[in-house]
Each structure stands twice: as C-alpha cells, then as structure tokens.
C-alpha cells in the first residue's frame, strides 16, 4: 500500500497534542460586548461625516458662469458626458484593454443625449413663458446643421461670458435662440426647478439620479469643492471621505495604482487598474493552489511568532 508524500504547503500534520477548555459562546458574547463598546466610544468621540449634497440650484447660484458654460458644453458636445461613450452614448469608443473594447462591447444601456436630456427636455417642461416657447420652437424647427452653427457661433464668444443683472451675456452674433436657451436654463437652475426636472423626466417616482449627477460632474463646482476636501483622484480620492475620517482605507491598493506610472499617465488607466486588481484578487483567491506563492508562509516563518508557545513547549 503506497501513501502520498507529505506536502508541507498543502497538507497539515495530524495534531496529537493537548486540548484546552474553550467556551465559544462566552468568547463570542465578550467579543460583541467589547466591539460594541468600542463602536459606541468611537461614534461618540468622532461621529461620522455628513456634508450636505450640492444641488444644481446651489451650483448655479454660487457660480452662474460655470453653470452656463457647462450647459453650453452640453450643447456643443464638449463636456465629459457628451464625449463619454458607453454606457451613455456612442461619442467615444471608451477605454480598451489591449484588443478588448469592453465598454464599447457592453453598448449604450443608459442613453444620455446631453442636448435633449440636460437642456431641451427640461426647458420644455417650463409653463407660461412665451419667449422660451418661441426659442424652443425655433430650435426644434431648425435642422442639425443650423443648430450646430448657432451653438458654434455662441461658443466662440463664451470665453468672454459675463453675468450681470441676472443674465448671462456672451458677445456673439448669428446665434439664433441659444442665448435665450442658456439664460432660461440658468434661471431654471437657480430656481431649483432643473434639479426636479432632471429626476422626474421619466415619471413621478424615481430613485435614479444618473442625469443630475452627470450634469453636476461636468461642471467645475463639484470638483473644486472635492479638491478642498482632498478628494480628487490625485489626492487618493476614491478611498477618502470628507473630513478627517479613515474612509475606505481598504481600497488603498486600488487607489495606489492611479498614483504611479504607467497608470497615472495612461488614457486607459481605469480599465487597466480594474484588470490588475481583478488579477490580484484572483491570485489571492487561488493562492492555496499556486506553487511557490503558497510556500511563502512556511519560508518567511512568521508562523513561529504566531505559534511561539507551541514551538517553545
């Protein structure tokens, strides 16, 4: 009768030593009480952060020019969302992992047309405004080339955009209804109506904030506030939260890759970092099956510290 050779990194020796009393219920109860007291202590001493969410209303009142510039960007296709690609639109192929165009293959499943969804549709819900009604009729009655021409002409003067007496002013000509549209949208935003229009566009009940979040993230207001809270990607933002709290410290490795080359300079960093973390997670999962890696614990001998009483006996 043959026996398989003992593999020290796979097999465990049969324990024939002593046993000690062990009260598992008592141990569990004490653990819950101690951890519970620690949680109460930490919650009492440090609390938890709750920075109020910004709204399009607060954004457009705090910085109407940034809001109007973003709104214009949604119309001329220069914002992040307008140029995003999947899952929102087909404006870009999205990132690729070598030959794998994962975002493109996944397709457009959350369609967002920035002109329609962020500008024209919300304005169309405004009642009793003859000037707006006329501007929207002019916009909708024009062909695509005419619309592009108006927006392009307006965009050329956007660098000199000013805000005075409650109006956005841009020195530009042959711009059709664009100034009215931008001003009416800014007024709508400052009143708070745009916040509601963006979430209720698909009905009374909703729990989906995709559109207002995309719109807000296209401006600089949100990012500027985040920078003050040290939340930018370059500031290890993904794992941080507002205030001096530990945040998602367990994401440190995921965030770390974004800080170093080649990822920090790669246009495909997101998919590359995700793939790398997926690979590392797989290695961790399959570690017991990987020769070499599974021998590390035996070779580094940290186990002698852990079981020092056993080895000193």
């Amino acid at each position, binding site marked *: 009768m043959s026996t398989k050779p003992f593999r020290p990194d796979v097999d465990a020796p049969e324990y024939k030593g002593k046993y000690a009393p062990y009260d598992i219920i008592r141990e569990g109860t004490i653990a819950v009480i101690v951890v519970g007291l620690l949680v109460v202590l930490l919650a009492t001493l440090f609390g938890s952060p709750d920075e109020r969410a910004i709204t399009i209303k607060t954004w457009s009142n705090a910085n109407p020019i940034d809001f109007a510039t973003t709104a214009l960007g949604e119309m001329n296709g220069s914002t992040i969302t307008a140029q995003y690609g999947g899952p929102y639109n087909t404006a870009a192929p999205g990132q690729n992992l070598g030959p794998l165009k994962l975002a493109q293959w996944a397709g457009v499943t959350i369609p967002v047309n920035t002109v329609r969804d962020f500008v024209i549709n919300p304005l169309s819900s405004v009642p009793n405004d003859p000037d707006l009604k006329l501007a929207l009729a002019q916009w909708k009655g024009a062909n695509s080339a005419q619309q592009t021409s108006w927006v392009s002409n307006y965009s050329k003067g956007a660098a000199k955009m000013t805000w005075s007496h409650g109006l956005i002013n841009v020195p530009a000509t042959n711009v059709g209804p664009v100034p009215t549209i931008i001003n009416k949208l800014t007024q709508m935003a400052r009143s708070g109506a745009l916040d509601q229009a963006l979430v209720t566009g698909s009905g009374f009940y909703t729990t989906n904030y995709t559109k207002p979040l995309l719109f807000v993230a296209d401006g600089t207001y949100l990012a500027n506030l985040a920078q003050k809270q040290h939340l930018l990607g370059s500031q290890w933002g993904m794992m941080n939260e507002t205030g001096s709290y530990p945040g998602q410290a367990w994401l440190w490795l995921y965030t770390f890759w974004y800080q170093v080359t080649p990822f920090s300079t790669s246009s495909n960093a997101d998919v590359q970092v995700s793939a790398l973390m997926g690979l590392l997670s797989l290695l961790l999962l399959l570690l*017991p099956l990987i020769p070499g890696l599974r021998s590390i614990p035996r070779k580094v001998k940290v186990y002698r510290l852990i079981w020092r009483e056993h080895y000193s006996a």
Partner: protein
Amino acid sequence: MSTTEIERQWTTRLRKRAAGKLPPEKLLPDTQPAYVSSWIYVFGVTTLAALSLVILTGFILSIRGPQWWHSSSIGHFVNSMHLWSVEIFFFAMIVHLWGKFFMAAWRGGRTATWMTGVVTFLASVGAAFTGYVSQTNFDSQWISTQAKDGINATGAGSIFNVLNLGQMLMWHIVLLPLAAVLLTAVHVLLVRIKGVVPPFEEKTGATK
C-alpha cells in the same frame, strides 16, 4: 412506512450527512487544540462581532429610511456606529486574513475555507462601496461620479449604475449583505468542520 423508505428520504439523508460532517461537539466545541493560543485568533471573532454590529446598526437605519440620519441626531449617531463598526470589521478582517496567510491556513483540506474567506472580503468591499454611494450626501455624489469611470471602463457600468441611488441602495442593503452573511456562515461552518489549522510540523522536515 418501512425503515428503508425512511432511510431513503432526502431529509433523512441530509440530516445524517450534516450530523456526520458537523456533530454538535464540532459545531459548538468545548475544547480546542492547545496551539490555538495566540492574539491573532482574536481577529476572527472580532470580525464576526463587528459584522453583527454592522448588520444591527444597518437594520436600525433601515427602519426610518435612507435619509433619516441627515435630520435626526439619533439617526446620525446610529450612522456613526454603522461607520465605525464597518471600520473595525475591515481592520479585523484584514488582520485575520494576513494571520491566516502566514499560518498557511489552507493546509489540510482547508482550501474552501480560505476561498470563502477571500470571497467574503471582496463581497464586503462591494457592500461598503455601495454604502458610501448611497449616503445621499456630498460624499456619495463625489464618490459615485468618480467611481463610475472605473466601472464603466470594464463594461460593468452597463448593468451596475453607481449613479442610480435605488439600484445601489438595493445592492447595499439586500444583495451584498446577504452574500457577505451567507459566505461568512459557510466560512465559519467550514472552520468548525475542518478545525483550526495545526502548526507546521518542523520535526518531520516540513520546514527547512
């Protein structure tokens, strides 16, 4: 009904199989090997204790809904307890994971125990992340709008929309906690079935 017929029942067979694998003295042991006497073992039970507090505080937050804690001092305190129990949970779980790595705790047919532990960790990362984007405050606005790019780049954003509060909240309070708790239960049962991994046997040449 004959004895043979009873013996063939699925219920009887399952009970016998479960009792054979996990008799009461293994499920609730009153002794343990003498080598189980290191501080590192504390972190396993600390993880379980913290998880129970995460679930308990989550239940309390659920009673009044996702925005209660913004307007109630009691709600804010419960949210703070939820946050700190999560922080302790992850701290203890990561120390536990490193400890088990240095013990090579997968030895002796314990590969499934290791794997369920790793998957529990990954599910917990997802549960915590979906919690962060469901807070309905500035943090959730910023984290979700940043995280969308990483998820969208993999194609997963086509079905997992981090900007959809309703979807994220469902993942946070139903799907991922359920996965984490079930995986933890399987993990603990595997530990009870297989026992705590013994030390390396140095005398037999297991180490150089």
